């Protein structure tokens, strides 16, 4: 559950995620993820669809979705990459967009594209179980199971590793045939549960 206190400003939240509010609020659905006409076309084309509403007013709003855990991410100029289904709410000053995630996106079971959040302010991301935030630096790169990946921020390069070989075909695979590798400098968020993924049983 996320609590947001508003004093006349706006936040953007996943459509329909408001569970309660106190005060004077207006809720307006934004067409096409709130990125204007170009963003709407991009989202439609990429399948990274996001139903967003703009919440404006004075008072307190509570947001929640499917009893999932909510974590706050503070951005100061860097970019947060997050799957649209895991993004609950962003501060009015943050910009959202879509970016190409490549093959790794497909392995996460979430399509080839991911949502980006840029600017300065706070965003709320959702996870199945409390997230674990893991720092990545040049000295210690990180490898993540695609089904447990939630988001990452900062100057992190994401690459896709496949350990699948002939043995995978004979049912003797290592169980973690597809992995995401993060290198660079930033933070990666993982959840203690796994989405059903394309490579999940290999």
């Amino acid at each position, binding site marked *: *559950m*996320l*609590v*947001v*206190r*508003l*004093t006349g*400003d*706006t*936040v953007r939240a996943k459509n329909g995620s408001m569970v309660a509010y106190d005060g004077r609020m207006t809720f307006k659905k934004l067409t096409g993820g709130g990125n204007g006409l170009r963003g709407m076309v991009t989202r439609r084309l990429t399948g990274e669809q996001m139903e967003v509403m703009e919440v404006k007013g004075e008072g307190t709003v509570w947001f929640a979705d499917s009893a999932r*855990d*909510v*974590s*706050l*991410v*503070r951005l100061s100029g860097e970019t947060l990459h997050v799957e649209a289904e895991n993004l609950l*709410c962003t*501060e*009015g000053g943050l910009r959202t967009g879509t970016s190409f995630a490549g093959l790794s996106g497909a392995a996460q079971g979430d399509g080839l594209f991911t949502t980006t959040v840029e600017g300065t302010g*706070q965003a*709320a991301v959702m996870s*199945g*179980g*409390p*997230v*674990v*935030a*893991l*720092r990545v*630096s040049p000295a*210690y*790169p*990180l*490898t*993540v*199971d695609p*089904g*447990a990946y939630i988001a990452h921020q900062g100057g992190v390069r994401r690459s896709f590793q496949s*350990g699948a070989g002939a*043995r995978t075909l004979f*049912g*003797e*695979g*290592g*169980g*973690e045939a597809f992995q995401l590798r993060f290198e660079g400098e930033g*933070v*990666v*968020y*993982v*959840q*203690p*549960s*796994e989405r059903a993924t394309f490579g*999940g*049983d290999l």
Partner: protein
Amino acid sequence: MSAFATAGGTGPRIFDPATLPGDDNVNPYTFCVEMAGGRWFLQKGKMIAYYGRMSFNGVGYGPLDALVRSAFHSPMHAADWVVAEGTGKMLLADRAYDVNSFDLDDGNLTVRSGNLLAFEPSLSLKQSIVPGFLTLIGTGKFVAASNGPVVFMEPPLRVDPEALVGWADCPSPYHHYDHGYLRGVLGGVRSLTGLGGASGEEHQYEFSGAGTVLLQSTEKVLAERATGAGPGRATTG
């Protein structure tokens, strides 16, 4: 200026390999295993992330033969298990269940097969005679998950099969039925057809002897009932 707040405070704590605990819980749902060139048996898909250099191989992988011969005796579950080896720190989690590590000291413990995440090869894994359960024998550490915190009980005890996580040191359980079908024809009709209603608690596992029984605080989830929706909206649920 809008102010965001959650139960988790201003944001999650950020871990790196130095601050992650070694062989301990990161939070109630995530466990960190510290690997220093050793090996761990791992159930497929329970690893969520790792730092360092590690490899994962199925239990049929040739170089692991000696290890598998000494520590793995569950052909029925062979396809679900891999061996992790290398150095670094590895995070384990399972369906956002509570995870805990347990130490066995020359003991034995039987656990629901889907709830066992990982174990040290100094333990030996055997198929339990009770279907769907695995027995660990020996000395070492293992990690298991439960839906809700584990509750420890002592026999004599009857437990709901779905709430049972495992048991240690006591004899294997036997079935216990409360069926009333020996008490007349109507009781028989009721238990066979469900007519007249059943409590759903007619069948239990019964434990006797000395030992410990591990329970979780969840059973099968009941189907949700519709509570209504606003005009023009389909009722889901």
